[in-house]
């Protein structure tokens, strides 16, 4: 167990990661949902957990919440054991599931208050503010809410409670774009308050806008983790240049791979550390126009997913997962 699990002093608690997962394994019968997952959410950061359906995002979150018991590895939540210390730890976190189911006969307002009571109280000012921001009618009953409005009930209940950690599992599924924007505003405000946030999503723009660091999950292991810049630094930048003179051997250009020359138009990707070298070399051929684009999150995400499971990225073995950017170059873009 990495940090401060003992009854330790406060100095230790301050240093603790909000969530620290090492080699987590979770099996359902013969199916292995999580296969050695590593994940660190630092205190005070927004951590984006990216992955498609069925990658294991919700399973990981349910282990973190102490709803499922780990079959292997270690999980530390706010310095405690989520299965053993569930009650004490839940005082310090709030959760929004991706599929909110409400009591048919209970109004949204009642549901928010019940959830608040079960967490030890709500901030009334925040509750009123959030109801207004999300334009939620608290007098309707559970059965008559649409999917998006049920989602809002859980979001308001979570954000109005005074907690250290927010665990959000695809929280905006069913929200319209206007509400999505409100949600991003409010999460930014929560972050400014110093809360730690684990945000699982498959909406790339949401994660790009909010997350300090990102982990990409595939088939129950983390295949890439780090800040967007770190991920980019290890990924290749695409370059398109129109040259007046054609290089004889485009593949021999410094740091380049996948080079293609079509008339005077060179397209290739380049190791970002060798971009200056490439520019210097290209200058000698006379650059007429030049486009250099760092990879988008979408590029980063897709490259971990184009190809059969276990054959690209660092994810196959699961061994080097977790160290930022490790193994990114192993999987060449198609």
């Amino acid at each position: 167990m990495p940090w401060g699990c003992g009854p330790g002093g406060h100095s230790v608690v301050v240093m603790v990661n909000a969530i620290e997962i090492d080699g987590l394994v979770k099996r359902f019968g013969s199916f292995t949902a999580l296969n050695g997952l590593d994940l660190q959410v630092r205190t005070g950061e927004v951590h984006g957990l990216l992955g498609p359906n069925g990658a294991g995002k919700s399973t990981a979150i349910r282990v973190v919440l102490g709803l499922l018991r780990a079959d292997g590895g270690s999980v530390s939540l706010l310095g405690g054991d989520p299965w053993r210390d569930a009650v004490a730890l839940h005082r310090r976190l709030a959760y929004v599931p991706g599929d909110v189911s409400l009591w048919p006969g209970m109004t949204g307002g009642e549901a928010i208050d019940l959830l608040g009571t079960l967490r030890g109280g709500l901030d009334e000012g925040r509750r009123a503010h959030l109801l207004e921001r999300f334009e939620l009618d608290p007098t309707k009953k559970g059965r008559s809410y649409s999917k998006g409005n049920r989602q809002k009930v859980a979001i308001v209940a979570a954000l109005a409670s005074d907690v250290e950690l927010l665990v959000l599992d695809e929280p905006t599924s069913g929200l319209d774009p206007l509400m999505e924007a409100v949600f991003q505003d409010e999460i930014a405000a929560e972050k400014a308050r110093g809360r730690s946030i684990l945000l699982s999503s498959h909406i790339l723009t949401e994660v790009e806008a909010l997350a300090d660091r990102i982990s990409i999950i595939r088939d129950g292991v983390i295949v890439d983790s780090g800040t967007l810049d770190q991920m980019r630094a290890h990924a290749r930048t695409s370059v398109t240049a129109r040259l007046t003179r054609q290089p004889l051997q485009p593949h021999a250009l410094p740091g380049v791979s996948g080079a293609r020359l079509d008339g005077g138009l060179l397209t290739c990707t380049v190791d970002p550390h060798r971009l200056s070298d490439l520019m210097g070399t290209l200058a000698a051929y006379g650059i007429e126009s030049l486009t250099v684009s760092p990879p988008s999150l979408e590029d980063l995400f897709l490259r971990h997913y184009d190809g059969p499971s276990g054959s690209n990225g660092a994810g196959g073995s699961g061994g080097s997962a977790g160290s930022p950017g490790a193994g990114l170059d192993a999987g060449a873009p198609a």
Partner: protein
Amino acid sequence: MTSERLAGFRPLLQATARQDAHQIAPWVMLTSVLSMTSVLAFGWVFPDPASQAVLSRNVASNPAFALIFGSARDLTTAEGFNDWRALALGGFFAGLMAIFIVVRHSRGDEDSGQAELIASGVVSRHTRLMVAVALAGIASVAMGVVTTILTTAVGSTFLAALGMGATYTASGLMFAGVGAVAAQVGSDAHSANTMAVGALGALFLVRGYLDATGNEDWVWVTPFGWTQSVHPATDPAWLWLLPPLGLSALLVGMANLLLARRDFGLGLVPPTPGPARGGFASPLAAVARLLHGPALLTWALGFVVIGAVFGFIATSLGEVFGKNPMMAAVLASGQVTTGVLTAEFLAMLLRMMGIIAAVVGVQAVMRFYTEELEHRVDPLLGAAASRTRVFAWTAGVALLGPALALLIGGTMTGLVATRQDIGLSVGDVIRQAVAETPAVWVLVGIALLVIGARPAVRLAPWLAVVATFAITILGPLFRLWDWILGISPLWHVPTVSAPDASYRGLLVVGLLALVLVVAGFAGYRRRDLA
């Protein structure tokens, strides 16, 4: 530590109780009224020793009564009559209520996802189970209190009424424990309910078997025998209320141990992967198979057991009557023969079987409506399935299920009962059981009409089943007029082995069933979906 183990108990219990009160109230009322009405009816129907003597003889001459209600100890006082009529049956209802409450609020909320938000709050994993058990406990106590008050109000002695209420509470607490354990083991709420209700039915049947075969001295080996041994009206044995409390505590403790070993949303039995493809000739058939298949299989097994037990008791009647001095005297006088009594016994048990078969059909219709409430019918109707076809599958299963159940149960009863010469052939017994089918279809038809046209009154079909039970089984004993007895569709089923059997009444009943079903179709085509 205790506060930690039950963190969030009080607010969750309050919220759950408020949500659930309207679902619990009918159970409390129905069961209390059961006890109240037997005290009321006794004064009206059996006011003098002569009528009471007839009652005693009628009850003793048909062990089917002992099977359902338990052995009668004293049928000369209203309290004693109430002990016989309402104690075992009310305890059965109390147990059902407690099982449904516990499973609904433990596994049921996990299946529907409502518990997921709750579980992420400052709530121990034991809290939700204990809230469900506590709610079942409160409902059981409420049932006991209301029963005591109502029964005393109509003239019972207070102690007898209190004893009756206390046995209801005890039964509720026991089966809250059974429900709590089943909720940990079953892979979802549905299988947990099946498991717990199966246990309830089996225990009731064992108690009934002991009572009906003249082994009433041994009923104390079963949980329903414990509450029966309290017999508050004759010579109260209050200590028999303790074993139920002990069993309840034991089961709830066991459930909590099991709970600590299982994952949220999963039972102790891990799920197995199913087929990736469905080579379906008809998608609706596949949906119907998934929806109704497991329940119908369970019921089929249940009818094999019920049929065999009924048949087995039929073969022991001579012995049972021999042990009873009153019956021995009646038989010796030559007024009736054991053969006649056996035929009457079988006829009554087959009517009981018909009522249970109606439960199979009504339950299938209700299952279909639950699908609608959970929005699983929308994708079917959104695809190229018409409302008529979707409803037709429901109607088909709900009508054929009971027919098959009667065939299975009747065959088992016939095969087992005719191992001895009871004056009837296997074919007679089977034909008698199958002849009840149109009458059972009336009850299923009511369910189809209600769910098709007005689901808001979906309690009505269940009330119809209960009313049919009351009129069919108890009506003749209460010497009700024919026009009241005729309300029960089963009253119109002729004795098929009689030479002058007339099928006209059965034809009318069958036509009525047809009208109800057609009206259900018409309603379903017109109404809004939930």
